[in-house]
């Protein structure tokens, strides 16, 4: 142990003794940088430093590339030092500013790293991704050809863009790179569909891009009955099928599936209807519930502000006959029975047909009740009605019937 401590002490004393003084040398008087004005990316670039007179020491070199700033010291022996600009500092295209400093001296130089040859893939970028097929709207195709290090290739490089239209025509465009990229407007034609776009430069290729050319706003919107002879009857029950024509734009392109169409109905009785639908293969369909009294329907279809010509439908009455109203005054309640309420075929009106009961007398009561199995049956509590003579009226659609009863 003692020996170990002794050894450590000796080593420490040795380490602490003063260093030998460096031989005196004269101060540098001139600093020069020698570098090629241009070079290719990825190629090792020698940078030579000359420090006069035959100076030995270290020079601080600052390199500002288009990617980042890099600081390095270069050892100078006999007034000459060399630095090799290697990866990753030589992988970005653009100017490289070199500044060397030693004591109070400094020198600067600039070199340019040129991009190397273009590599695959040449990827065309397209936006907007969908345009209207009206021959007027356009989308932009942008290509950024790059070398193996991802540097955009030299300006004025040619890029060929090819577009295959929905009608199978091919459009060829040529663009030169500028400001790192090549771009070209691609105008739509008049046929809706998918346009495929490719780009190539210097014999290099890439994946395709897509541009959708879609139908524009429709023209000549119209409405018609979906079936040739639907049963029209004011029964308040059945549905009337309605559809639009084949909706196309000015160039005959069918609007895409799912386009919103709103059917607006004026029922001739002061009430309106609004029914949503969407196009399927260019046609929008819907169904309209029949009214419960004879009237005239005016139907229009609308896509945003594009409106069709109105379709006018006369809904005839369902030909139902009159019905009986009976009111029986019992101890606690008044039992009301209305019916049979039948339609044009002498059949029961549909269950759930709404009937309105009005009681007029010393006081007025009103209630709505559903018709079930052709009859309306309900009770009115006697405690709700003071003594007197009452007129009971029942409305079903546009038909009505009356009955008088007396509360003693």
């Amino acid at each position: 142990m003692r020996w170990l401590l002794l050894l450590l002490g000796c080593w420490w004393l040795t380490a602490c003794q003063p260093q030998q003084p460096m031989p005196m040398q004269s101060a540098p008087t001139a600093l020069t940088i020698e570098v090629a004005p241009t070079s290719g990316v990825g190629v090792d670039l020698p940078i030579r430093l000359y420090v006069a007179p035959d100076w030995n020491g270290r020079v601080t070199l600052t390199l500002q590339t288009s990617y980042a700033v890099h600081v390095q010291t270069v050892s100078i022996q006999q007034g000459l030092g060399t630095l090799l600009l290697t990866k990753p500092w030589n992988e970005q295209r653009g100017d490289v500013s070199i500044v060397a400093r030693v004591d109070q001296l400094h020198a600067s130089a600039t070199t340019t790293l040129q991009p190397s040859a273009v590599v695959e893939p040449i990827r065309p970028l397209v936006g907007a991704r969908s345009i209207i097929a009206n021959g007027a709207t356009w989308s932009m195709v942008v290509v950024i050809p790059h070398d193996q290090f991802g540097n955009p290739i030299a300006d004025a490089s040619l890029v060929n863009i090819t577009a295959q239209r929905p009608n199978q025509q091919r459009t060829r465009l040529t663009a030169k790179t500028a400001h790192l990229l090549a771009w070209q407007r691609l105008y739509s034609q008049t046929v809706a569909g998918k346009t495929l776009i490719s780009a190539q430069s210097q014999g290099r290729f890439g994946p395709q891009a897509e541009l959708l050319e879609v139908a524009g706003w429709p023209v000549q919107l119209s409405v018609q009955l979906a079936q040739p002879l639907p049963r029209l009857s004011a029964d308040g029950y059945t549905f009337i099928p309605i559809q639009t024509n084949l909706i196309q734009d000015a160039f005959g392109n069918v609007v895409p599936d799912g386009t919103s169409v709103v059917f607006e109905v004026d029922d001739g009785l002061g009430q309106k209807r609004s029914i949503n639908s969407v196009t399927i293969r260019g046609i929008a369909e819907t169904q309209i519930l029949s009214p419960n009294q004879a009237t005239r329907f005016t139907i229009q279809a609308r896509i945003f502000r594009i409106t069709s010509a109105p379709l006018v439908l006369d809904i005839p009455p369902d030909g139902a006959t009159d019905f009986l109203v009976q009111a029986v005054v019992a101890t606690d309640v008044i039992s009301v029975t209305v019916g049979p309420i039948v339609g044009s075929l002498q059949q029961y009106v549909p269950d759930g047909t709404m009937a309105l009961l009005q009681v007029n007398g010393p006081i007025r009561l009103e209630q709505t009740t559903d018709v079930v199995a052709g009859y309306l049956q309900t009770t009115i509590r006697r405690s709700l009605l003071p003594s007197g003579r009452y007129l009971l009226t029942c409305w079903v659609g546009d038909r009505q019937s009356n009955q008088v009863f007396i509360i003693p």
Partner: protein
Amino acid sequence: MRYKYMQRRVPINPYLLTALMLVIAFHGILLVSGNFKRTYDAYVHIFFADHYRRTWFDHWDYRWYTGFPLISYPPGSQQSIGLLGRAIGLLPAFVVVQIAALLNLTLGMYRFAKLWVSEEAAGYAALLIVFSSSICETVHVFGQLPTTFSLGFLLNTLPFVKRWLSEGDWRDLIRAWLLHAATTAGHHVTTLFGAVFFAGPVILLALVEAFRQPKADEAMLHPARIRRSNIRPLMVRRFRRIAPPLIRTVIYGPGLIAALVLVVLPYWLWSSSDPISQVPIPHASRDSFLENPNAGIVFWLLPYGSTLLVLPYLFYKGFFSRAWPMALSISLLFLLGTGGTTPIPKALLGGAFDILTLDRFTFWATILFTPLLGEFVVSMRRGNLARYLREQFGRTMWRTTQGCCVLIYVGVAVFTANFTQFRRFQPDPIDPAPLVAFLEKDEHWRWRYLMLGFGDQMAWVSAQTTATTVDGNYHSARRLPELTTTPVERLEGAKFRGIPGIGSLQQFLAVPDKYNLKYVFSNDQFYDPLLYFSGWHRVQRLENGLVVWEREDIPPLPEILPRREIPWFQRIMWGIVPPSALFLGILALTASLWGPRVRRMLRPFLPQSIPIIPYHRWWNGVDQRLKRWSVVPMTNDQQRTRWQIWRTLWQKRPRLKPAPPSAQAVRNGLIGLIILGSSIVLWRYSTQSQQSPEAVVLAYYDDLDFRRFAAAYARLDPQTRPSYDQYLLELSVQGGLVASYGKLDAVIVEDLGGDATTRIVDVETRWVTALNEYPIKERLILVQRDGQWYLPTAKVDVRVPPDTFIRQAAIDWFAAGRRRVTTTITSFADVQDRPELAVLSSRLVSYQGRTSIVGEVLNLDVDPADLTVTGILFDSDDRELTRYNAQSVINHKLLPKEVTPFRIDFEGVAGAVLSDTLTAGEFDPNAFSPLTLASPIDHFTVYAKAVVTNRDLNRGLAVQDIELRVDDEQPHIQLTAINNGTEEATIPHILLTYYDAHGDVAWVDHAFVASSIRPQRTTAVSIPIIPATAIHVIQPDGDLVVNALVEAAIPPAEPGYLLNLPATTGYTAVRISIHGYFAEN
């Protein structure tokens, strides 16, 4: 001071030993069986423990509230779980720590009780604490580990405090301080209030004992009358007696404060630098227990349990024995624990009343009662009570009473411990694995998430993942203004907090991009309407039944999240000092086990004496002087008189003679009759009160709300009601916002009179939904049959659809991109196009003081769009004042070429106005948080963006029979909503766009249809028109930012309106559009 050591072998109290075994047998089994998973707080502490398990010295956790400091809660119990959890897992670690805490508490009770009552009674107290209903509730209902954890240390501290004060052994003082430090590490509030309610009586006891105990060298003269000549020596004599404990109290106090401050110093520093400035969260312990009986049951009746039956005895025993200082403390705690039932707690606590949870006072009262309960047991076994019962009622009654007492006490404990089984506070257990897997999949953790309807299990789920949420389960750490300005404990249970809760949740759901909130895991369909109409859509249902909701177009979280730093020494302190305090506390408590051996080992190395504070010489001088001053004149010596007059009187009361056997039999019979009679009277009263017409109506809706359909059916008129199967069938087809997503909030019954057999009542039921409140009024005619009132049968829909089988063509979309199975970044070609939009018009208006932007957006694109419309307000210097999204007054999912109106309702932070929130316990659909802006609005911008969607594009709904009606001078639009589709429309939503004379949007209104609409069926709706004069235009036009290249693509045709409006309304026309939520999609 010289070390003195005398090893005493004290026999272990058999009751204590039994109690410790019963802790493991009773509480251990319940805990191991997982009872704690249904408690309120257990998972919160486990979540904290999980944090310490992951990062012991990090004070910040990003997972809740967008980040919160862990130094906001004393860490002792949680660090213990975290440390143990590394070895055995968090859940078993919680069980082990809780059992250890209960063992410590039982031991502490025994030692504490010995200060006040006999050894035998202390043993019973240890037994009684095991089955204490308040302990059962704290452990098995509330899951408050820190309370039991710290209380055990506190109770074990107090005997050392007493011994220090009475005997002055420094070792006792050091032990007391160390145990106080351990108490603080577990729960600082226990130390804080324990100093008043537990240590205070002990100090008083020590002083009183010293006050009454003559000194050995004291003259035994007792003057009968206080005179001028003897008053000074008498006072000095008493002062001389209490001077040592007084001085020791003065020494003890600073150490107690130091233990309270230093152990959790980072907490105090955090509290002072970042004080809790939150709206108090309503706590039922502050309610009047008479007005809120449920709160009374949970916070008063259950904790006291069967103790209430012997309360008079306990107070008597407390005030008539040496335990009267503790009885005083109990009395104060008893009063404070009554919450808002009496005005006394509020008067005593002042502002703190609204912050403190008062049930802790009741809890401490029950703890302090326990030694006296031990005395009761002794008395029932062989004391005065036993003798009284034997003499007056016979041995049988005595034994029966004893048995009943045991049965009731243990029965209440078992009931309380299993209370969560009888009354559910939490939803069913949720398996967190699928949720965690979802968050881990596809880097979903890059966005924040929110849980709804999880109860306290949200903490356990959070502990399973490192993903972050805006919510949390520790309200003191909330920092987001949307949370701190509301009395909402958790967004997860927002529906239980009325408008502040729903309002706060709405703000997060309306502007989710502000918090990078993209996913909601819903375990409660109550929130579905709110989510859907706020623009969220369902992604999938997980294996555990949770529904995942997603909001499109939310930016992911930044790589570096903000955190609030504290100095490094505080972080180190937080990780080292509390566990060290616990360790030293345990060492101090067990010193009698290891101390003598260690001392024997170290004896050669220790000095003979340790001069801690050399005050003895000084004190001896003072003491001798006091002794001289306390000499009473010899002529004053008289017989001692008793100053507790009431004790003398009590002892002089006439004693009852033992009753003969016949009298005992009569008395026992009378008692039996009284019990039987009372039961019959109570039963008749309860049945009669349930048979009035109002009670029948209330009971009917209560049955419906709680899905007791058989009971509800039995209340319908037997002569007109359908069969039970038909009734159930009719109920099953009722759906929609109110029936499926509503919560019955109130039933108001007004009796309009009638005759003997008929009664007309107006019933208003108020249903609360996540979107609105729906009051439904109906008039019912009740009939009486066989003395029982019955409701009429509800009207059912008897309509039959026209078609038996419907065919409909439909469009479907599938958005898949061209994604490949790869872990690399998404390629450009995978990304869907952003649909092009056009904002047709926009206008800044105010209505009833509320600022809104109204307008219309058109989807110009050929793809369906998921829409987000944001309004931004600026001042004249172009500084942004605020921004908000259109929430429910918009159709978020647009078909190609579809138009939607929008209304962006600007809101301040929900509940930001304190005066509103303090009274906002009830749901108020019209309530909103007013906007407070730094400067006036100068201009505004509408920013519309969209992504392609394939969800929620069902357009099967339509409106018909639209007409304008004027009733009571109030114009309204009457219409019928019809479902032309093939799926039931669960919640139809109607949007009304009002136009002015220039064709610009003047106002946008909306209405949710309360009931669902099945295919080919209709429902009538009436919507009042808000007059244009009520709308104040602030800015007629704003800047627009949309994703649209070709604005000219909009056709120049004139807009068409659906319904022209009369000039009296102030509008030209209205356009009505309808869409809806289809739950079965």
